[in-house]
């Protein structure tokens, strides 16, 4: 599973908190890169700001750790200038959907040939646990002390609507499925968006009665529902259980894409 050749040994130890799910997602992504047979000197990792965005710093390739929210715009420049390079973006829910929302929809619309892995922990982790655009209604954070009062973004649905060629959602529990989705995304020309819901025991779980890592992962597992099952329930006119979210492949298509190497 692990791709040790890709780790920047001299950067360890990493800064992630105990129990953080980001390492799992990095592992799954690197496993995907290995499976694709991409070489280190032809793969570039790009990120914005936040916990997720520190990931490229631990990977032994050229990498661009940019400004908050702008990773996809930087990555667009890299990919369009050098279509022969493989571009993988790590981002988080705050980075991608709040400050980076405009870049997100436009990168999907352009369908730039890159792989975007979003570590969605439903919180601004690095700044200490403030509410983000994916914090579930009612959840407690340092800026939603009475419970989140705004609806949450569904990032994967947003990517589908905006035009990405490949969109999937899994969690840090679904390690094998997530890796397969990363590979499928990398194989699909155009923008591949993979949302990986993940645990943040330090800044999300602590405030929401999910302090233990197993509890958080179990929460993700038990609330994940396969797309096919959800569709079946809807077709049969049965209620979809409250609080569940879909996992699986939401779209794989071949709309015109930019930056595809010919």
């Amino acid at each position, binding site marked *: 599973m692990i791709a040790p050749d890709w780790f920047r040994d001299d950067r360890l130890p990493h800064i992630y908190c105990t129990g953080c799910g980001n390492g799992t997602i990095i592992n799954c992504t690197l496993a995907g890169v290995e499976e694709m047979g991409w070489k280190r000197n032809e793969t570039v990792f790009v990120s914005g700001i936040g916990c997720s965005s520190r990931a490229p710093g631990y990977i032994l390739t*050229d990498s661009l750790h940019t400004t908050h929210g*702008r990773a996809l715009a930087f990555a*667009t*420049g890299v990919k369009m200038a050098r279509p022969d390079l493989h571009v993988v973006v790590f981002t988080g829910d705050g980075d991608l959907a709040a400050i980076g929302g405009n*870049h997100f929809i436009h990168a999907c619309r352009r369908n730039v040939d890159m792989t975007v892995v979003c570590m969605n922990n439903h919180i601004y982790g690095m700044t200490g646990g403030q509410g983000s655009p994916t914090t579930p209604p009612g959840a407690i954070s340092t800026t939603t002390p009475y419970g989140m009062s705004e609806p949450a973004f569904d990032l994967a649905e947003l990517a589908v609507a905006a035009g990405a060629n490949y969109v999937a959602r899994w969690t840090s529990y679904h390690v094998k499925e997530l890796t397969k989705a990363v590979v499928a995304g990398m194989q699909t020309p155009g923008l591949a968006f993979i949302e990986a819901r993940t645990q943040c025991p330090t800044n999300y779980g602590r405030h929401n009665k999910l302090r233990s890592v197993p509890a958080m992962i179990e929460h993700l597992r038990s609330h994940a529902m396969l797309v096919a099952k959800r569709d079946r329930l809807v077709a049969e006119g049965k209620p979809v259980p409250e609080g569940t979210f879909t996992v699986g492949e939401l779209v794989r298509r071949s709309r015109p894409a930019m930056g595809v190497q010919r």
Partner: protein
Amino acid sequence: MSRTEFMQGNAACAEGALAAGCRFFGGYPITPSTEIAETMARKLPKAGGVFISMEDELASIAAVIGAAWTGVRAMTATSGPGFSLMMENIGYAAMTETPCVVVNIQRGGPSTGQPTRAAQGDMLQCRFGSHGDYSTIALTPNSVQEMFDLTAKAFDLADRYRVPTFLMSDEIVGHMRERVTIPDAVEVERPRPLAEGALPFEAGDDGTPGFAPFGSGRAVHVTGLTHDERGYPDTTDPEAHDKLVRRLVAKIESARRDIADYEVVNPDAETVFVTYGPPSRTVEQVMRDRPDDSIGHLRLRVVWPFPEFALKVFPNARTFLMPELNMGQMVREVQRHVDQPVISIPKIGGELHTPAELVRVLEAYR
């Protein structure tokens, strides 16, 4: 052989970039800079380059920086409000030592201001607009020919010093039409490659590290965080921050004599006009109308890093006069380097000083 054409300043800027080998343009439409993007949209694909209209100015400069790290020459063009939006990533480019060119066709501000009128209101923003300490290079053309020449030169300076470099033009020069001589080829100076065994952000004696673009197999980690010579974050050590930021500033400031570019008329003069950009054209008119050795002119083609030594070229100077299309931005920089009185001749509203306006001030102070 070169060719002569009659063209607009903004078109000449695009031509200068193309001649210098620019192969990536990311931009967002804004008056009065759009003809640069339009020309690039038409010509870059035919030259094997990439033109992309990004979703906003933050994305434009971000894409330019991303492209620059793949080793291509990359630029964007904008005007005041867009320039303001770019500021965070301009600081990122300074911190990460990314060579790139930003063209600002200045218009009247603040805010949306006068989109179709000229100004020189962003002269301090281009030096101090982003947060923290850093230094950059800014060129100020006063003709369509210089839009071509200085744009090409901006790429060389950006590459040599690995710094975002600004072409600080304005609506007057951007939209005026003049004859331009376009050379067949422009000599191009690329960044020094990263030496074998050298660390990615290890600077030599000149303060500028070698450059290893993405894909060259050097696994360079680029971050806007305070970093060590390996490029690894080192954000809490006071010495690491001090060493890095001092070097970023010093590599530009200590090269001010090499970067400087200015014109001197009548060095023995007692009353000296100091100009940059189009107000120099009015001064030239005044001096043509009244040949007089007691009137001098220092015209800056590079304003940052500021070439204070150029002011010493006028040993008999008793007064400096400084017409600017703002309320007196660069005049402060002149004042802090000379003992003589420096008289600001500000003008805002979108029009150039008339010769009569300058003559009035000249008569009052000589």
